[in-house]
């Protein structure tokens, strides 16, 4: 079945990929590059890895998530993250306040790492996705270096950890619950939304479809 499409060597070109074939990234098996019906997933028959999904609305959704990330991140950084009250006093703090306070303490390397994992890398990933998908959506053809930007977005995914940070916040709330009363502000909910968007984006994104649109 595959043999019929396999090149015999004479029609191999260095500039173009072998037409009509797709390789499973997990097990290297070759398959005919069929397009699944809308809403379907095509899996590698050998190792069950997803080869391709087809959801026409998915790219729009991914683009919407990417565009929503910067404003939500702005809220998450500047608005009140938590309010602590006890003994008649109330104190509010945002993530920026926390960063300022920590900048002068000797724990700044830890704060820097956390800032990268929950702010810088998710933001960079969203910008890279928007850079790739927006021109395509507007019908202008792929942006310059779109392939590089999309690879960056794909590689950054495991390192963007907003959802894990939220579990950390929950653990802290329990740990300090005996010491003071803490309430969560809009910045916290902004982080919750960011984490939810990242998860939905993961589910919607079919990397192969984006690669097809880039070249």
């Amino acid at each position, binding site marked *: 079945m595959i043999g019929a499409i396999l090149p015999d060597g004479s029609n191999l070109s260095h500039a173009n990929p072998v037409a009509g074939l797709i390789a499973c990234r997990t097990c290297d098996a070759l398959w005919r590059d069929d397009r699944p019906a809308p809403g379907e997933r095509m899996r590698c028959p050998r190792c069950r890895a997803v080869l391709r999904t087809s959801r026409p609305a998915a790219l729009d959704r991914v683009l919407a998530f990417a565009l929503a990330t910067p404003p939500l991140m702005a809220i998450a950084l500047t608005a009140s993250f938590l309010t602590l009250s006890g003994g008649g006093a109330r104190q509010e703090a945002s993530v920026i306040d*926390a960063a300022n306070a920590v900048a002068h303490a000797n724990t700044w390397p830890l704060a820097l790492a956390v800032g990268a994992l929950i702010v810088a890398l998710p933001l960079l990933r969203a910008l890279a996705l928007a850079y790739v998908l927006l021109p395509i959506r507007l019908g202008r053809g792929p942006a310059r270096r779109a392939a590089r930007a999309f690879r960056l977005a794909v590689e950054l995914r495991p390192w963007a950890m907003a959802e894990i940070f939220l579990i950390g916040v929950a653990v802290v709330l329990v740990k300090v619950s005996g010491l003071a009363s803490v309430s969560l502000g809009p910045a916290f909910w902004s982080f919750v939304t960011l984490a939810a968007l990242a998860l939905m984006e993961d589910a919607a994104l079919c990397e192969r479809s984006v690669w097809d649109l880039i070249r």
Partner: protein
Amino acid sequence: MRAQRLGSDPLTAAAVVTARESGLIACTTCGKVWSPEAEICGHCETPLITRPAQGLSPVWAWLVAGILLYIPANMWPMLITRTLGREDASTILGGVVELTQLGSYGVAFIVFFASIVIPVAKFTAIAVLVLAVRHEIAMSQTRLTHLYEVVEFIGRWSMIDIFVVAILAALVQLGFLASLAPGPAAACFALSVTFTMLSAKAFDTRLIWDRIGETK
């Protein structure tokens, strides 16, 4: 045993042709298939390698680094609390015990799972995967692939405790809490998790499936 398993599978070695067997190179990023002379995928610009030249050494190297750092991460204090001149240092496990003493069993379980169970399971799983490439292991390729997917998916969740320590440290700086500081274990643990993630990333799952061809 392996042959039997293959025989019962409708997709036997004969039915599947890999890019390598066909003398082609597949891109591990976008799945496009190239002639063997191509060095970089013309589609997504990923360097093309039919199989990693250094074999499994990068996987082992990151794994060993991760395991070595995990030892001080558990021996040294994660969090140091100073109250009224008294210094109290708690390790990762000590923090879990404290949480159970607070009666927060759910949260204690989450921290225990993220900081102890996941890292140890991940070290073991990566070692199993690497060994399965060279040695006969009583697990099917499909199960090994699943194992890899689980390792990739779950590894990041170990970072929970790092976020907890960082938030607590920030609360102290903001004057919300009494004196408290991250201990040396925090850096070791964060690096251990990072290195294990890099170890999993360096593993090429195609190596698991290559063995089917060899037994033909």
